[in-house]
């Protein structure tokens, strides 16, 4: 039986054993490798430079089949004595190695190394961590180097990938820096799942559980597992997009795989010990602000403001016109002029600061290397009293314990503390909801000094409105906190029998404990007796894998294969204690509360797998791969829980047949077919019961736990995909284009299909449906200009995914993925439509599309059935990366483009209903005049014909006695307040916006100090100015950032009460010693 403690102890033992080998084995400096005493008849002296002729310091020169070697000095010069006809291998990190045969004693050997990015033989990390030549792959793979993530850092590293890889769509929630991210590769393949890819870090799948997310009623985004990866440790990120790429990771990879390879210890130039220091300091400001707001009318109702109104109407902007001559007495007893306050809400936010400092210590000797990293990230958010910190410790050692045995051990510890995660959506502690509707004459800063009475109780400012709690009380008195401790480690043993055969065993585990605490002090509106909730998450998972690989050559054929086995086990436990009725008010602890309710939850499953793959190639121009995997999942019923799926892929390098490679230097065609099976969440096969956690006079209360009808006959989901593509490089690799077309169909989906609740359940778990994703991905890389000191690089990527729900089940043609808090809106998968149709009641329209108005009320009429009002899926997405290099200066930028999805902005709805949205100005003046006339005439509302007001755009339908229908333009003037309140409750149509945007994700301006300036004291120094999300070049949705979803699952296309997003500017310094 697996034992966590044993595993940890073992990992430590191996780790420190290894460390001591390196640290204490040999203390001699290694200016030069020991030169074996033998017959060395040649003395060679040479200079190693890069393409620009700059000398390379610390390039290694090794003699093939010999232990001797040398390292270049600061002038790129090396000297070595070698036997005649021996081969020198000259290598430098980031450059292609060169081999030179010594034919004579040479005192003036010149070696120029070219940088890797231009190398044809790009090596990429593929499934199971196997490094392959990129040209051998029959499928598309996206790659990002760690260096690209290092400067302009995102707090969650995954957000840095935005705009960099075609078809990879990254959306952040409105949860800010501590929140999670939604990553979708090639569209949504699953109807009712999270559609998130699998993250694999150095061969160990990472548990990316989202600890908690907001739904339509609100909540907190508690972040995810991937956010704790330290950008400084990332060597490269590979994105395996299609099932062919991910077939070997099994069911968990059915939405693609993101492979993260972290850095290993390595020799730092000519020194035993290398130290690297990387520091980024950025300032954050709000990027978006509530900008579509009328500035004419202040607080009140019906155009009037009564003297008692200051407490009742501060969230209603249906009052009179601003008038600086008029004074209003406010909640705090102060009298202030009734005028519009500019930049009022913006004043709530402060300048944020994020500091990230990391130290990397590298050491290597022979085949042993160690890398230690410590990173501290401290963030002070733009919201008052909000911030987070993260400390990451990482140790990685790689060594040869025996001649043929490589050991690679990694231990990572992350401690993350977050203060005041922002509450989202309709949560009462969502401060945005209060700020959005605060009338323009009411300065938010007045609330700052008056949120608490001298006795510590809540200072009432709006009649205790529970939906508009003073935001300063929320942030200062209702502080929520979370603390996360994540410990992960892995051990890799690789035994190389000979040049052809190896056996690799990997074991890894991840233990993550997180505590989250919400608190509402006594007198908080809605929680007057005090409230506290402590959630404890104890997550653990382990993964054990063995792989036997074989590789050989026969004439012009190269062939290889491997077989492997894997066990993946996850066991997550949750405990939630809810405490109410606070008695000891000075101590925020559970024992201060009289009533406590406890509930426990569990999520555990295991998948055992066996797999194999084979590949064959002929003369380096045709490659063929095949894989087969068999999974056995604990979540499926016995009998259906074992499933097998294959994949085949092929690549053909047709440029091998070209004689003239001046124009087309490289050309490859690729094709693949694959199938992936997938399982589901645990405990879904049978009905379960639970006891209520609330004590009713000590009498047990019990009920059925399931809201979804369990299914004891579940079968695995199948996704079939075909992918075709080509990869061309022109003009000596100055221009490259990579095009991929794919078509994938997921059948037999395990989905939770909504049912009539009269069945007793909200949904049933079924195998049904078919969803199709077709798409095109294009990546273009070019170096349009290259001069001696100047170059310009440009990368453009484009992806179009067209997603269609082909069929559901039993005549059901639409299922709900998420529902909105207001206006009866659902985000649905509807047969024949894009996944993510935004549906709800629409205005009733005539044949010409005019809105039909009810003549008696002047209000619009509505359809009784649900119409498609928009689509939450993007038409296409893309990105542009560009970099200009002049000598040691580099200027680069990344643009992120998303086009075509719609967003139901409940922020706009809320603004409209509260009279703050600009659109609510229509008809106000006229209505208020009409009301004055009515009051002067002393006529009741029903008997008065309004002389003006809001006239809804549309037609009134009349039917004559013969049944003929005529339409006349609506002329009835009504109170604009009535119009917006009524319409806002009935339909989302006026608040659905095209959510397309173009954002600048990143700008960096870097300078690397020339080596000659710094060689005395450091290896390299670079300084960069960095900016993350500095501008939104285009957006259509008012008031908010287009990336404002409140959760990262089905709730796409819905936004509510979003806080402004952040832009950051700062400086990055990198010093290598």
């Amino acid at each position: 039986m697996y034992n966590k403690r044993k595993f940890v102890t073992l990992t430590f033992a191996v780790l420190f054993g290894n460390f001591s080998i390196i640290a204490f084995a040999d203390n001699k400096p290694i200016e030069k490798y020991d030169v074996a005493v033998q017959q060395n008849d040649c003395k060679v002296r040479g200079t190693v430079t890069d393409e620009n002729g700059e000398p390379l310091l610390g390039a290694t020169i090794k003699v093939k089949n010999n232990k001797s070697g040398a390292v270049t000095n600061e002038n790129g010069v090396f000297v070595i004595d070698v036997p005649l006809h021996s081969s020198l291998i000259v290598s430098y990190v980031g450059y292609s190695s060169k081999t030179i045969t010594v034919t004579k004693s040479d005192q003036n050997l010149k070696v120029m190394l070219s940088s890797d990015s231009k190398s044809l033989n790009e090596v990429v990390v593929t499934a199971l961590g196997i490094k392959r030549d990129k040209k051998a792959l029959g499928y598309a793979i996206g790659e990002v180097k760690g260096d690209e993530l290092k400067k302009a850092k995102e707090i969650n590293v995954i957000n840095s990938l935005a705009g960099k890889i075609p078809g990879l769509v990254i959306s952040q929630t409105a949860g800010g820096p501590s929140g999670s991210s939604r990553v979708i590769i090639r569209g949504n393949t699953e109807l009712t799942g999270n559609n998130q890819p699998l993250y694999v870090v150095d061969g160990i799948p990472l548990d990316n559980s989202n600890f908690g997310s907001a739904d339509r009623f609100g909540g907190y985004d508690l972040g995810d597992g991937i956010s704790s990866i330290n950008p400084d440790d990332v060597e490269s990120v590979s994105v395996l997009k299609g099932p062919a790429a991910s077939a070997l990771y099994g069911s968990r990879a059915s939405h693609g795989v993101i492979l993260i390879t972290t850095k290993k210890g390595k020799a730092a130039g000519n020194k035993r010990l290398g130290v690297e220091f990387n520091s980024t300091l950025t300032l954050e400001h709000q990027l978006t602000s509530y900008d579509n707001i009328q500035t004419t009318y202040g607080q009140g109702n019906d155009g009037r403001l009564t003297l008692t109104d200051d407490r009742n109407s501060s969230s209603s902007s249906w009052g009179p016109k601003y008038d600086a001559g008029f004074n209003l007495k406010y909640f705090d007893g102060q009298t202030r002029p009734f005028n519009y306050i500019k930049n009022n809400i913006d004043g709530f936010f402060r300048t944020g600061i994020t500091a990230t400092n990391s130290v990397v210590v590298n050491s290597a000797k022979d085949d042993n290397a160690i890398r230690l990293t410590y990173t501290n990230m401290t963030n002070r958010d733009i919201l008052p009293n909000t911030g987070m910190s993260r400390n990451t410790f990482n140790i990685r050692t790689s060594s040869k314990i025996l001649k043929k045995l490589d050991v690679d051990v990694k231990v990572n510890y992350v401690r993350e503390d977050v203060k005041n995660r922002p509450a989202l959506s309709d949560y009462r502690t969502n401060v945005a909801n209060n700020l959005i509707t605060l009338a323009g004459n009411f300065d938010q800063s007045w609330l700052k000094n008056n949120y608490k009475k001298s006795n510590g109780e809540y200072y009432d400012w709006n009649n205790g409105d529970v939906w508009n709690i003073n935001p300063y009380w929320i942030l200062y008195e209702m502080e929520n906190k979370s603390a996360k401790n994540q410990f992960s480690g892995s051990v890799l043993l690789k035994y190389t029998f000979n040049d052809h055969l190896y056996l690799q065993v990997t074991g890894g585990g991840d233990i993550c404990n997180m505590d989250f605490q919400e608190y509402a002090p006594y007198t908080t509106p809605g929680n007057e007796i005090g409230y506290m909730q402590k959630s404890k998450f104890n997550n653990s998972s382990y993964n054990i894998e063995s792989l036997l690989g074989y590789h050989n050559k026969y004439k012009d054929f190269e062939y290889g294969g491997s077989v492997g086995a894997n066990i993946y086990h996850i066991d997550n436990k949750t405990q939630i204690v809810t405490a109410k009725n606070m008695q000891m008010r000075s101590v925020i602890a559970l024992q201060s509360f009289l009533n406590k309710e406890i509930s426990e939850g569990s999520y555990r499953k295991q998948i055992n797998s066996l797999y194999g793959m084979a590949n064959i190639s002929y003369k380096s121009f045709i490659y063929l791969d095949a894989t087969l995997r068999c999974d056995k999942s604990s979540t499926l019923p016995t009998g259906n829980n074992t499933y097998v799926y294959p994949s085949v892929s092929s690549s053909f390098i047709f440029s091998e047949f070209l004689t003239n490679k001046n124009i087309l230097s490289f050309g490859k065609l690729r094709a693949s077919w694959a199938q992936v099976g997938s399982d589901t969440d645990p405990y879904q096969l049978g009905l379960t019961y639970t006891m209520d956690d609330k004590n009713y006079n000590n009498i047990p209360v019990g009920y059925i736990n399931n809201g979804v009808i369990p299914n004891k006959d579940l079968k695995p989901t199948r996704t079939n995909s075909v992918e075709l593509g080509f990869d061309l490089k022109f003009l000596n690799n100055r221009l490259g284009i990579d095009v991929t077309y794919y078509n994938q169909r997921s059948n037999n989906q395990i989905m939770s299909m909504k049912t009539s609740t009269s069945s007793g359940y909200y949904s049933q778990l079924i195998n049904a449906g078919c969803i199709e994703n077709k798409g095109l991905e294009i990546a273009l890389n070019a170096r349009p200009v290259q001069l001696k000191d100047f170059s310009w690089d440009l990368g453009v990527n484009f992806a179009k995914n067209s997603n269609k729900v082909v069929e559901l089940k039993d005549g059901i043609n639409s299922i709900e993925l998420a529902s909105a808090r207001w206006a009866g809106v659902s985000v649905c998968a509807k047969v024949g439509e894009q996944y993510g149709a935004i549906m709800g009641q629409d205005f009733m329209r005539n044949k010409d599309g005019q809105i039909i108005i009810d003549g008696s009320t002047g209000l619009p009429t509505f359809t009784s059935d649900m119409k498609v009002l928009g689509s939450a899926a993007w038409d296409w997405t893309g990105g542009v990366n560009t970099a200009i290099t002049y000598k040691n200066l580099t200027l680069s930028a990344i643009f992120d483009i998303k086009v075509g999805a719609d967003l139901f902005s409940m922020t706009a709805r809320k603004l409209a209903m509260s009279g703050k949205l600009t659109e609510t100005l229509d008809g106000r003046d006229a209505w208020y005049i009409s009301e004055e006339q009515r009051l002067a005439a002393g006529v009741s509302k029903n008997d008065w014909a309004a002389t003006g007001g809001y006239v809804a755009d549309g037609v009134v339908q009349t039917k004559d006695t013969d049944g003929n229908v005529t339409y006349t333009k609506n002329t009835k003037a009504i109170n604009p307040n009535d119009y917006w309140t009524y319409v806002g409750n009935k339909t989302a149509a006026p608040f659905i916006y095209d959510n397309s945007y173009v954002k600048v994700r990143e700008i960096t301006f870097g300078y690397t100090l020339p080596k000659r300036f710094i060689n005395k004291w450091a290896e390299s120094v670079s300084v960069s100015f960095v900016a993350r999300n500095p501008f939104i070049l285009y957006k259509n949705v008012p008031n908010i950032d287009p990336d404002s979803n409140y959760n990262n699952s089905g709730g796409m296309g819905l936004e509510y009460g979003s806080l402004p997003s952040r832009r950051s500017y700062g400086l990055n310094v990198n010093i290598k010693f």
Partner: protein
Amino acid sequence: MKTIIRKCLTTFLYTACIICGFSSCNDFEELNQDPTKASTIDPNTQLTNALLCIGGDWGVAQPFAFYYCGFVQHLQGDYSTTSDGGEYLNSDYEFQAVWDRMYTVLLKNLVDGINRTQGDSSMVNANSALRITKVFYSTIITDMFGDVPYFDACKGYISGNVKPAYDKQELIYKDMLKELTEAEANLNENGDALSGDIIYKGDIAKWKSLANALNLRLAMRLTKVEPEFAHEQVKNILSRSSGMLKSNADNALVEMMDMLDWDYNEHRRNGLSQLWRGRENYPTCYICSTFWNKMKDTSDPRLLRIGRCYDESSTNPFSRNDVTEYIMNKSGNGINQLQPVKPGFYWWDNWPNGFWDADKSFWWDKACRPMLNNAFIKGNCPGIICTYAEQEYLLAEANSRWNDLNDNTTAEQHYNNAVRASMDFLNSNYNINKIGNDEINSFLSANPFPSDAEGRIKTINEQLWIYDFLNPAEAYSNWRRSGYPELKSSVEYGAKVKDSQSIPRRLFYPLTEQTYNPEGYYSAVKSMGGTDSWNAHVWWDK
């Protein structure tokens, strides 16, 4: 070479065996059992859950508070009560919410409990109590919508039916009457102990009386559509040896706890009272003029027990000052100074005239609106299933309609019992200024029981309407059935309305039913005349 390969394979197989060894410890089937949940449970705990929800589920109570209290004009003026129940706003969100709550929380567990105890002689009392409780809830939902899923409802797991047919209300009522009859007969004082009974603490005889009283409620509901059938049913009920509820001591009430919590799953406090207390600091449950004037015109001693005036001196409703008498005395206008809200209006419409209080230098206006007495907005107000007073009103009506009931009590006696029990019910369950016997006597003598049958039926049902202000589901159904009191719509009071010109007779089906149960939904809509309308009458309201 070959030996190397053989060695490798051996090593690999050895590793594979170690790996498989791990899995044999973890039996997959056991791994897939949730360690925090049970695969079975005592049905008595499900009975407790269902009974608690009677008073405790604010999801179920919300349409009562927002629609029913407004429709029958008990309360008016609070934003939701006026917007929904006064201006007749068609709000799908509310209909969906109560539909979901009824089927997925209450009926689901009752159907499951009944299914698991069906035919089990050792669980006969649990089975019968669950069936009676199910009838209680089924009545509420069919009275709310008309034809609804009933026979096949909540069997998504049991039979796999996820699109239950909409059953005719007539068949639902006939089956519920049968269920009550059978359950009453099956209840056995020597049978299983009813540990989940939080009403009578396992007293089987009282459960039999409760079954009969509910049976009477259902039978009387049919006087409009099938008077003869109702007549037969009532005769039958009265002939049972188990007897009816004998006094207020037999009332089927659920004890609730004194707490305030907006947790949707909190069932221990009275959800309806909490909704009346409201989410804001100052409760906004204002008495409707119709209700107020009826009690005022008949010198009903309950008038100032139900309606009170409060100032806003504290943010805690229970610490505000009760200023009823102060306002009446200070203004010099007495009871006439109190200005209830008219149907279809908000509390801030037609702002009360008020008066100047020189002593306090204060203009009394808002406080002149009578509100619901604090006694009725407490978390520990009991959950009401069925009471003696209601039973007596119905028996008074039955005896006024039919004179062959073999009931040895007259209509007038039942009526007097009912009125006394109504007053006593408030005295003994709510913290009000006690209504004295003399007050009851003078009320009865001031409002004599009419001699003609129609006059009697009118008086009885008007009184039942007053009594049912704490039981809005019965107030709305009994008003629709009996036609009393004669209510004018909000339009007739000069209010603007939104989605109906008259008081709606039912609620709309939730829109999602069009998508997830189209056959059932459209068959029900078809029999209503082709469109889902809340002006259509349910079967027994024809």
